[in-house]
């Protein structure tokens, strides 16, 4: 009997940041794309921060791929650089002092082969030697996504990747995310209903720090 492969993400915990309280229990299966929706300030970005390791749980537990990375009760956390997460924040945070190619290849885990593949897949080849300052919003978003994917993450965390993006960039990103064979387990924060219906396997609604609804799609 083959053992079940562990969940990509198992989260059951609480975090308080100032007056805001986040309390969630959530799992993401390997290869699954879960859409996180909800009003602004609901805690969606914070949830991503917790998984990425930028914010620690106050109580509860977070495991990635079956390994505990954050034990809230004893306050023991694996630092972000030892987790295999790819985080693409809303404001992308590209490294202005590096070229697009160097940005994509920034991760110590990135291989030249992977970098080249992603540059092509996201139509960034012609920008390889340019700097982020010279890129449009859509191009920058693709660079950020490529950079995260190049680090071979086990879980991809996307914070509103398609907001205010040109049609072409959206299409390229959706094509990439839609390929179930090549994409990692993903948590996608979005306001875009077409993204939810088109890409997600499950929809989780978050309101005021709590999960209010879970719907399979």
């Amino acid at each position, binding site marked *: 009997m083959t053992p079940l492969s562990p969940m990509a993400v198992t989260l059951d915990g609480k975090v308080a940041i100032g007056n805001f309280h986040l309390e969630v229990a959530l799992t993401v299966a390997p290869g699954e794309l879960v859409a996180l929706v909800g009003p602004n300030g609901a805690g969606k970005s914070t949830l991503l921060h917790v998984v990425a390791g930028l914010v620690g749980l106050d109580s509860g537990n977070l495991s990635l791929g079956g390994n505990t990375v954050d034990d809230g009760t004893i306050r023991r956390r694996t630092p972000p650089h030892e987790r295999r997460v790819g985080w693409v924040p809303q404001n992308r945070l590209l490294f202005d002092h590096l070229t697009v190619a160097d940005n994509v290849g920034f*991760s*110590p885990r990135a291989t030249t082969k992977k970098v080249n593949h992603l540059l092509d897949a996201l139509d960034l080849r012609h920008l390889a030697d340019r700097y982020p300052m010279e890129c449009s919003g859509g191009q920058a978003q693709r660079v950020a996504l490529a950079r995260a994917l190049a680090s071979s993450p086990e879980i991809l965390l996307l914070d509103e990747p398609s907001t205010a993006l040109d049609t072409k960039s959206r299409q390229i990103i959706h094509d990439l995310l839609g390929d179930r064979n090549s994409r990692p387990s993903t948590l996608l924060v979005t306001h875009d209903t077409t993204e939810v219906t088109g890409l997600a396997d499950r929809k989780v609604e978050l309101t005021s720090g709590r999960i209010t609804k879970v719907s399979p799609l």
Partner: protein
Amino acid sequence: MTTPGGAPRAVLFIAALAITFLALPVLALLQRAPWSSLLNLLTRQEVIDALGVSVVVSLVAAGIVLVLGTPLAWVLVRVNMPLRRLIRALVLLPMVLPPVVGGTALLFALGRRGLVGQWLERWFDVTLPFTTAGAVVAATFVALPFYVVTVEGALRTNSDHLEQLAATLGASPISVFRRVTLPQLMPAMAAGMALAWARALGEFGATITFAGNLPGRTRTLPLATFEALESDPEAAIALSLVLLAVSLAVLVPTRDRWIPTR
């Protein structure tokens, strides 16, 4: 850049007063300069010696400031440690302490009979007073806060999100510091260095109190100027002009903005 309707006149007027206040001593210096005998004065051995000592001392001090000051600035901003406020005040202390007081304190700490100095002498046969190294120590002491304040200011305005993102990509803390923090900080580091170097170049009180005054070894341009004032005012003016020229040569091209923002 100006507000609609032009710059307010009262503001311009006061700014003009401030500029006059700063420019007046410099203009007076230029006016008194013995232009005809200047070349003669400038090629004297004592002037060349003083220039040499000043250049060496200020550059070495600036280098030490860079190495010590960058981690210090980083820790002050990014590390949440107890007594942070006290440490920050300590860092700023050489800025507000009269330089002679600073030099005397250095003497009590690192002099031959100093708190630590006595062990330096006993165990390593190292004395700092009356040596060029001592002049470097004095210059570093007064210049360090200027660098730290500049770099710290830049670090405060740049949030650490970029570093956090680099960490999620798998870069270790030291790797993040080297590949993300430092490159982002370069403009502020350059500005801080210029400021610290200028301060080190102009240092007088701490140098004369701690390192003493000997031509070719510890007599920097400021010290030589002070000594010349006693006996040879023309030489003093010539030395002042050298200081002025060297300072302007470095400060004018580099000080475009105080704290460079991204």
